[in-house]
């Protein structure tokens, strides 16, 4: 019975494992991924189909289809139920739904199998031992004694026996199909690696340089400027700030690593109500000092709190590799 229900035991262990992994807050890892995928896409369908159908009535391929199809149904229809509940669609609610369905269905299957096994035992014919011979049972000739197992211990007999067993096992291994299948998997994986590397190379082949300037939502005279680069090599830049066409401030040099961000906040003098000024920022690359690489502009309007002197505050967080 235990051997027949080994599948259910494994299912229970996986569900318990997933509960422990999620409960302990372990982030994504190989075991978590395996258990999670199984719990979402395989186990509910397997357990439910095992509870509903008898093993003999459904063939392996059909059972596989039922496993996948019913698992998808449980996730979709169960998800609708979870959405209607206050908890919504969260890790814990999914775990309780899918784990609960799987465990309940497994218990039903176990109960059915136990009942079926008991019924089969009752119906099994038990042969009655009749002795037609006049010879008493005790005097019957003793059966030929089974061959003695090799004695344990390091000796030639044991080694030969193990060698023989190994030979038998190795003889049964289908080397050629295994080798070819392994080769197929290796070639398959090579294809994936080549395609992924090609995509990464293309993605990183073109440099990205961003320049931005945003007025602060709470302090309208404060401007947040930033540069972000994604390039193949580090680069040196110059940033120039002008107000109504007149040079106001500049930062030179700005060194940015291959993937880097540089930010600064500038508080401008307050304007009188009704006044406007055009603040522009131009970014230059050190190797092309006369060509504007990026350009942004913001119009500031009067009415904001007055400030007498401009304040430059480099933001502390994302300025690694920066020399403002």
């Amino acid at each position, binding site marked *: 019975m235990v051997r027949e229900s080994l599948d259910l035991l494994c299912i229970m262990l996986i569900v318990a494992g997933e509960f422990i992994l999620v409960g302990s807050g372990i982030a994504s890892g190989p075991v978590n991924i395996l258990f999670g995928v199984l719990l979402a896409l395989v186990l509910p369908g397997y357990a439910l189909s095992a509870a509903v159908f008898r093993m003999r009535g459904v063939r392996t391929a059909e059972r596989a289809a039922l496993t996948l199809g019913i698992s998808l149904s449980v996730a979709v*229809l169960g998800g609708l139920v979870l959405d209607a509940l206050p908890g919504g669609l*969260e890790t814990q609610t999914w775990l309780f739904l899918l784990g609960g369905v799987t465990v309940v269905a497994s218990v039903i299957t176990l109960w059915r199998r136990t009942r079926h096994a008991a019924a089969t035992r009752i119906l099994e014919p038990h042969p009655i031992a009749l002795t037609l011979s006049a010879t008493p049972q005790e005097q019957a000739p003793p059966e030929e004694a089974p061959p003695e197992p090799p004695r344990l211990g390091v000796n030639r007999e044991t080694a030969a026996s193990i060698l023989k067993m190994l030979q038998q096992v190795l003889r049964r291994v289908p080397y050629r*199909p295994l080798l070819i299948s392994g080769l197929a998997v290796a070639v398959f994986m090579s294809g*994936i690696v080549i395609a992924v590397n090609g995509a990464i190379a293309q993605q990183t082949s073109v440099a990205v340089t961003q320049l931005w300037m945003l007025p602060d939502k709470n302090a309208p005279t404060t401007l947040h400027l930033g540069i972000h680069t994604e390039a193949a090599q580090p680069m040196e830049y110059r940033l120039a700030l002008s107000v109504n066409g007149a040079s106001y401030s500049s930062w030179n040099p700005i060194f940015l690593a291959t993937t880097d961000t540089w930010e600064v906040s500038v508080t401008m003098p307050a304007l009188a109500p009704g006044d406007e000024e055009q603040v522009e920022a131009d970014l230059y690359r050190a190797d092309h000092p006369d060509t504007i690489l990026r350009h942004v502009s913001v119009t500031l309007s009067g009415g904001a709190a007055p400030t007498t002197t401009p304040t430059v505050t480099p933001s502390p967080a994302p300025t690694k590799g920066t020399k403002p």
Partner: protein
Amino acid sequence: MSAEAVPQGTIEVLALPPASIGARTRGGGWGYLPELSLLGAVGLLMVAVGYTRSRASEGWGEPLFWWGLVLIFAPIVFRLFVIQTLDRRERLGLLLVLQVLLYFVRMLQYPLAYSSFDEFAHWRTAQDIAATGHLFQDNSLLTISPIYPGLELVTNAVSDLTGLSTYLSGRIVVGFAHLLLALALYLLFERVTGSARLAGIAAALYMTNPHYVFFDAQYAYESIALPMAVFVLFVAARAVHLGDTLRTRLGFIIAAIIGVWTVVVMHHLTSYALMGFLLLWMLASLLRSRRTWDSVSLGIFVLLGLASVAFWLVYTQSRALGYLGPVVTSAVHQLQLILAGEAATRQLFHDYGGDVTPLWQRVMASGSVGLILVGIVPGLYWIWRNRVNAAVLALAVWALLYIPSQALRLSQAGIEVADRATEFIFLGLATVLAISMTQVRPNVLTRRVAIWALSILATVLFIGGIVAGSGPDWERFPGPFLVSADARSLTQEGISAAEWASVNLGPGQRVATDRVNSVLMATYGRQRVITSLDDNIDASPLFTSLTFDDTDLNILRDAHIGYLVADLRLSTGLPRRGFYFSEAEPDAFFYTAPISRAALTKFDDLSNVNRVFDSGNIVIYDTGALLNGT
């Protein structure tokens, strides 16, 4: 399982060729599965190298891709044709290997992130579910997506339980769905035809449908609904099988009903097609079957299915009808105009950027349609002359829908309907074609030359289907930037700009931009993009008019647009897709010159519009001051 083991019972077993050639059982029933898997893997490797070379604009990447596909498909199909006594394990194994390889052909095209418009639209829905923990959030990219959340629900479950990203979880979900599709296809065909061999061939022929490799493998609701629908058909076929015990039959009936409900929540069109086919099957059953059990069982599925479709329509305020209705009526109307000679047909094999499909591809695509139209005739005749069961009869009638669906391809609006209908109609076509190939002249299959010929024809169907279903070369092959070419217009610059918007502008800002940047801003940027689908406002004049006038101002104010994202690369070429923003823009499909750069940068001269972001090609303008009336 012994060779050629087939389900017995209610279904008439079709004729089989009397003898097999070269029949071999080896490898413990797995036959040539390892060898053919290796060949297929080499084919996939060629496809991967082909993609990589295409990225670098090297011409030899394309032939490598096509020959890789041939290497994946042809040997497996040949094996499925050649051996009548093939072990069921090998047959199923071959189909599953073929399925996995074809799924990776699509995945390796853009392996790092989603790439098509539909994928981004569904990704946004999945992101919303993950962020809020609840369904039915608004999605302006595809308003219908949140109300058919089956795919996103399963993705959310996998993502939550594994800790994987929504992207990887989505890929896993669609991959598993495709395994189900391969299994369900085989089991359905085996069940309804009673022949394991015919089932294997029909399942492989189904994979030649134009949408199978690329469209049906993307992260979209149809990609999961279709496998589920085929699963329902298999389970329904099993439920009407009287050879089983009552408990088993009841089990299959329950599974079919739950499956129908699931399909209803997954995808509108698939659920309607499923209902249509079940209805047809029930009618065929009333006509053909001597048993009332078949018709009653199918009747239960149809009634419950129709009730659940109606319930979901009411629950979602019939938004699916509002979404699908205009597409279908427009397609039919355009076809009527074409038939009346009042409108020109769509120019086939040309894209809107001026590229013409290579001759060999045109021959393959046309050849595959021709082969199907010619190939179904013997099968239909055989079905007409023989007393087949109700399911095969229904599939044959279903296959006939292929003819009107192809006529719809002549109109611009009809191509959408024709494309979507293909994967459903191919269930019937694959059955009829497989019957044509194996039943009409069974003895022919004892000759090796005939098997070679059939394998080549099936490969032509496969390659022709991919040409017809995956668009022009630029859509199939990754490579350098192209204007308004969906995946080919996605660049790191656009993704970074969207990520910048998410961090610096905050999510949920109302943003107007072109089609490609819309999907990036909606997903990576988490912005609320303005679309003609959801907002009933065409924002394209903001980017196409040379001067900023009252019309532009009214658009800005009506749509409450806070930010404009101008991609200056739009001025460098004609839109490959026929439009820059949406099909609703005035010059859609009729552009003769690119948008002027001056039109895209006219906001630089407006004093109350801030140019807050510049990454070279992409500029973001803050139009908040204009909304306030200043």
